[in-house]
């Protein structure tokens, strides 16, 4: 039985010269599993290697070896299983392992990878949640900065300085205040309010102090709070901050920690 045209194609293929449809045809033939062609290709590879070796050897530039040794020294040696012994023991062991593997692989893979997939899904969800939280916080901050910048652009906006009082003499604050649009209070160097307490801001126009919101300070002693505009746009004479129960109270009850003037 003739094996043509594959013998001729195998020769060209071994030299890397087979092209076009013949190459596709030959590769399909090879993929089908042809022992004759595989043997021919191996023999050709050895023949070509012998041809190459038959020429005079040439020592490559020493830098090439140095560079390679440096490169493999700085990489972790590839993690590989120890090479299998080439004996019957290996074959038997392999068979046993295969049978065992067939029995356990399904359950093992499922258990191991479901666990890992579950963990990865949880991590991804946590990450997504964090990103969303961070994004919301950033949006809030940007909105605050925009509003402050808009206020500063307005010629009617005033900056009122707050001074620390009593034990909080190191505390400082500023109020950016617009008579129609309200404003912001920004404080620094205030200690965190004790549990159940918060700072409350008051405006004093002509009569009793008006509560304009409660706020907390962060670990670095800083806090920011948006102040809504006052009804009727009455001019504010004094701003003050007191320490109050965290839900806020209608009239000041605690010690005053910051005040304008």
């Amino acid at each position, binding site marked *: 039985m003739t094996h043509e045209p594959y013998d001729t194609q195998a020769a060209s293929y071994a030299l890397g*010269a087979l092209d076009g449809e013949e190459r596709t045809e030959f590769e399909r033939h090879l993929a089908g599993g042809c022992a004759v062609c595989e043997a021919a290709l191996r023999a050709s590879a050895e023949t070509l*290697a*012998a041809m190459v070796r038959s*020429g*005079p050897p*040439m*020592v490559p530039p020493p830098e090439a070896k140095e560079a390679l040794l440096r490169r493999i020294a700085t990489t972790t040696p*590839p993690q590989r299983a120890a090479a299998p012994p080439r004996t019957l023991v290996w074959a038997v062991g392999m068979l046993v392992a295969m049978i065992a593997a067939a029995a356990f692989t399904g359950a093992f893979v499922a258990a191991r990878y479901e666990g890992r997939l579950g963990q990865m899904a949880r991590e991804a969800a946590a990450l997504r949640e964090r990103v969303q939280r961070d994004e919301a916080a950033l949006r809030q901050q940007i909105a605050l900065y925009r509003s402050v910048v808009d206020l500063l652009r307005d010629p009617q906006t005033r900056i009122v300085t707050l001074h620390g009082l009593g034990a909080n003499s190191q505390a400082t604050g500023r109020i950016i205040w617009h008579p129609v649009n309200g404003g912001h209070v920004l404080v620094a160097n205030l200690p965190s309010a004790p549990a159940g307490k918060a700072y409350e801001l008051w405006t004093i126009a002509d009569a009793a102090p008006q509560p304009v919101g409660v706020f907390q300070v962060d670990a670095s002693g800083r806090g920011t709070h948006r102040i809504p505009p006052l009804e009727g746009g009455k001019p504010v004479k004094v701003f003050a901050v007191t320490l109050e129960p965290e839900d806020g109270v209608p009239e000041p009850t605690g010690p005053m920690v910051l005040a304008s003037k």
Partner: protein
Amino acid sequence: MATSGAELVRQMAAGDREAFALFYDRYAPVVFPLILRIVRERADASDVLQEVFWEAWRTADAYDPTRGSPEAWMVTRARTRAIDRIRSTRRRSEMFVAPLDEAIAATLEQPAPDAAERAENRGTIRSALDRLPGAQREVIELAYYAGLTQTEIAERLKQPLGTVKTRIRLALERLRDVGRTSP
């Protein structure tokens, strides 16, 4: 007794760097002239050589001694990478036909019979390729060292494709016989 090449590859697969150094010392002087002959520039040849040995280190565990000698493993890889290199260079300078022709001409000139004879006179070993008849040597040169396909060789030599195919096959058979009879 020197460790066999296959044993060195097995040790490399286990991460043995000393085995790699020995492996390099043994095979680099074999494949370097091959790479240099294909890519022609010493700096390029050094690059390709490093690429080839780096791959050998990385894929040592895939080497199967029943499928071929370590030498054939390395020579095949070196030839493929060197041809990849010149093909990409040719693609970059596609419009310049002349340099390509010059490169091929240079490839063909190198093992000219008189050069082989000179080498013989100097007492160096005459390579197996030099022992082939001119027409057979030419197709091996064009395919193996210049990276041309059989269709390109037929065009270049102005020969029918069938003739080129036959010549390639005969050349390989002859090379095999030369290998068997050489010392």
